[in-house]
């Protein structure tokens, strides 16, 4: 065995590498396929989870205003809290992003993807001892469909026409076909509660691996193990304690002094300092969030596609990634999807910084005079620096950009989605369909690039109802190319999730779904004795 494959095996044992990644790198190193599989199996077997111990997390994003009702979960802390005590019908695969069964054992769509039948798992009990029934599921979903619940999943649920029980099965009828329905039900707000949480939404009784022990909003949340968990492959620690630490320096101090095992949101600028600590490991995971420069396609001078192309070619993505994110991210290609999404269309050529092409398109556009770009530090961390850097790289192509710094208060109501050229931020969405529907569908409220294309809208609706994955992927490729070459979006980079843990925390899964192992961090890791 070469040193390189030994190194890879070590990575797997540390839990730092997925099977896919391992195979890819081992094969690249010239190891045969069978040998690589065997290597992965032996390395992975060496990391048999250990049970027991008290896990402590120090997390940013909790406030005194937090409530346990999963419908109202907004903050990072409540996201993790919900994952600990509750389950959704469907989960997303941590590596491929595909829908995988949870409380729903299996599902079947009708041919037009309008009627979906979900088989609900038998033998699952809630923390209070009651058995999970299909009625609980129906009541939960109905509660989130109701405006009064103020559910964060309301937007998702509004597409659902009818929810009913049919024997032991759940039947959902949609107004329009949607092949992504199972993934939509993996939304972290949609935790199944007894009687849908209608009795007391804040009770935090669910089917998850941990039972809530105490809850002080904005301060501390504790859990103990659920001994009757229906799954054996999670919930390895005996208890979980979440301490809300909103100060970035305090989080890093708590981790390096060994008081907590895991922290989220490490500032990319201080990662290199943290890496020097011998007991700490930095965990970076690719994310779907992206930093953007957006132009309104229907407003002069940006209604000219040559000017838009010129501005896209004038963006030095590599430099931007290095400066603004200290390298903790991936460069973007001017469409809002990256390979963390299921059905990502591979093979679209990466757009690079090209002053010559930028000059060419700029001259062709016939535009003259400076282009006004509005920005503010609230757009994304380092947005003002990013705008100034862009100004410099554009100048090399002969394009003059005037950077105007706007006040942070009111930026989202007065500048974003109002002014024709500004900086902004987008969090990811669970599916490509959701991302495009939210911001690129011509009638969407947040169509912040004013991208109005009937052919794109048509394709979007067709793709949504298409059950053949190969066909769908092709449609998404066409849509991505449209946005990339004709849209008003300049997307220099996707930001990584940067978290950190003690080295004795094992089994961390780099879930492409969302930050903190898609919120499952406490249920998936174990502590090495």
């Amino acid at each position, binding site marked *: 065995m070469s040193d390189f494959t030994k190194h890879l095996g070590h990575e797997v044992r540390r839990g730092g590498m997925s099977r896919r990644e391992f195979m890819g790198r081992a094969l690249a190193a010239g190891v045969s396929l069978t040998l690589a599989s065997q290597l992965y199996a032996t390395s992975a077997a060496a990391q048999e989870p250990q049970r027991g111990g008290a896990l402590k997390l120090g997390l940013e994003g909790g406030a005194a*205003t937090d*409530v346990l009702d999963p419908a109202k979960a907004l903050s990072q802390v409540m996201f993790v809290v919900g994952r600990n005590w509750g389950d959704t019908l469907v989960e997303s695969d941590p590596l491929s992003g595909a829908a995988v069964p949870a409380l729903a054992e299996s599902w079947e769509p009708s041919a037009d993807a309008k009627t979906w039948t979900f088989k609900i798992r038998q033998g699952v009990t809630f923390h209070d001892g009651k058995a999970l029934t299909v009625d609980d599921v129906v009541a939960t979903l109905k509660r989130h469909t109701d405006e009064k619940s103020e559910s964060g999943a309301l937007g998702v649920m509004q597409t659902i026409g009818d929810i009913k029980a049919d024997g032991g099965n759940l039947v959902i009828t949609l107004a329009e076909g949607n092949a992504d329905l199972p993934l939509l039900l993996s939304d972290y707000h949609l935790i199944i509660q007894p009687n849908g949480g209608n009795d007391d939404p804040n009770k935090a009784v669910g089917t998850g691996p941990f039972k809530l022990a*105490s809850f002080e909003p904005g301060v501390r949340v504790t859990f103990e193990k659920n001994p009757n968990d229906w799954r054996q492959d999670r919930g390895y620690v005996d208890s979980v304690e979440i301490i809300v630490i909103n100060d970035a320096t305090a989080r890093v101090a*708590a981790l390096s*002094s060994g008081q907590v095992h895991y922290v989220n949101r490490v500032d990319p600028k201080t990662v290199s300092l943290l890496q020097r600590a011998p007991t700490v490991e930095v965990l970076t995971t690719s994310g779907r969030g992206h930093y953007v420069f957006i132009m309104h396609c229907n407003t002069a001078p940006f209604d000219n596609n040559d000017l838009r192309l010129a501005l896209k070619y004038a963006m030095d993505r590599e430099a931007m990634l290095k400066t603004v994110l200290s390298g903790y991210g991936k460069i973007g290609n001017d469409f809002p999807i990256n390979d963390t999404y299921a059905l990502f269309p591979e093979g679209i050529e990466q757009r690079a910084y090209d002053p010559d092409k930028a000059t060419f398109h700029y001259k062709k556009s016939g535009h003259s005079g400076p282009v006004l770009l509005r920005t503010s530090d609230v757009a994304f961390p380092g947005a003002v620096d990013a705008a100034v850097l862009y100004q410099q790289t554009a100048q090399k192509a002969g394009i003059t950009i005037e950077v105007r710094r706007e006040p942070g208060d009111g930026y989202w109501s007065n500048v974003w989605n109002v002014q024709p050229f500004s900086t902004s931020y987008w969090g990811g969405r669970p599916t490509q369909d959701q991302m495009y529907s939210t911001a690129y569908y011509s009638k969407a409220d947040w169509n912040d690039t004013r991208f109005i294309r009937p052919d794109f809208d048509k394709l979007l609706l067709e793709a949504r109802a298409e059950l053949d994955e190969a066909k769908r992927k092709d449609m998404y490729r066409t849509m991505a190319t449209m946005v990339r070459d004709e849209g008003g979006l300049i997307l220099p980079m996707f930001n990584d999730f940067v978290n950190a843990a003690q080295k004795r925390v094992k089994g961390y899964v780099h879930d492409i779904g969302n930050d903190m192992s898609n919120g499952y961090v406490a249920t998936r890791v174990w502590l090495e004795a």
Partner: protein
Amino acid sequence: MAAVPGSSQNLDGTARLPAGDPLAVPGAPGSLLVSVDPAVPGTAGKRPALGRFAARHPLAAMILQRLGISFLLLIAVSAVLFIGVEALPGDFAQTYLGQSATPQAVENIRRDLGLDQPAATRYFAWLGNALTGDFGTSWASRNSITEQVGRRLGNTLFLAFFAALISVPLAVGLGMISVLYRDRIADRLVNVFSLAAISLPEFFIGYVLIFVFAINFGVVSFPSTVFDGMPFLDRLEAIALPCATLVLVVLAHMLRMTRAAILNVMEAPYIETAELKGLSRARTILRHAAPNALAPIINVVALNLAYLVVGVVVVEVVFVYPGIGQYMVDAVTVRDMPVVQACGLLFAAIYIFLNMAADILAILSNPRLRHPK
């Protein structure tokens, strides 16, 4: 015992009124923070009954009057708070719903909370409830504010109490020592050290303490999170670092005031008498100078106590301590008006109460004011 500390200078340079002029205009609130006018009532001519009461029980009358003014002041503060939060851009429904804010959802929330009513109506409805001790429920969490505030305030007072317990005797003691060894090495050390501590921002002191004691030596616990049912000794250990930070921050102010006030008195003829009598310098300071320098010291102590309660939000954030400052900041972020109002009012009440107590104590410490002509 005739000398009264004359006009002295605060650390921040604000001039202090001559303490204890019996003819001071009654009821003139002066500056809320530094006024030490004893406000001995003199309204006998206008309101005979009140005047007679005031003449017979000057101290009681003064306290009553102070209480009345404080109450009016609190009402004024609540109005200012209300206007301030109203003026912030963005409203609760918008902020709370964030990305899921559809016009319909915003409208629902606004109607549920009565935000569609005019501001004046809402203010007076709130004021009416607050006067009966009901601060209502938080808009964001729908929990009782009184309960939450009680718990958070308890934490803040716990920390403030121990910080005061250490810092006040330490400051006054060190102040006396620096007078005793005036212009000698001990005095210089105390001054340099305390000035250095006050010059550094508190978050920086906090980070340095964390770095040295929690990370490098690992002798104290961090973060300083406290929770219900935490054993008392664990709590004490948890607040060690924030307490030390607060002590360092408030020490210099009180120490230098003590030193200045006593030095001021040390010029007086009766100190010379004491020295000529053959009293030791330490005894002279303790028995003769310090009691006459009490008024300004009490004032600066009260100011710092108030700071320990209402000004510690930065320390709370740095040390992850669940105090009331943090609670209020969380509420401001989402424009949770009832919580902001309740916390703001509480802060104002504590400030006013401590200042009033300082005034009264300052008067009690001065025999001339205790027994007006």
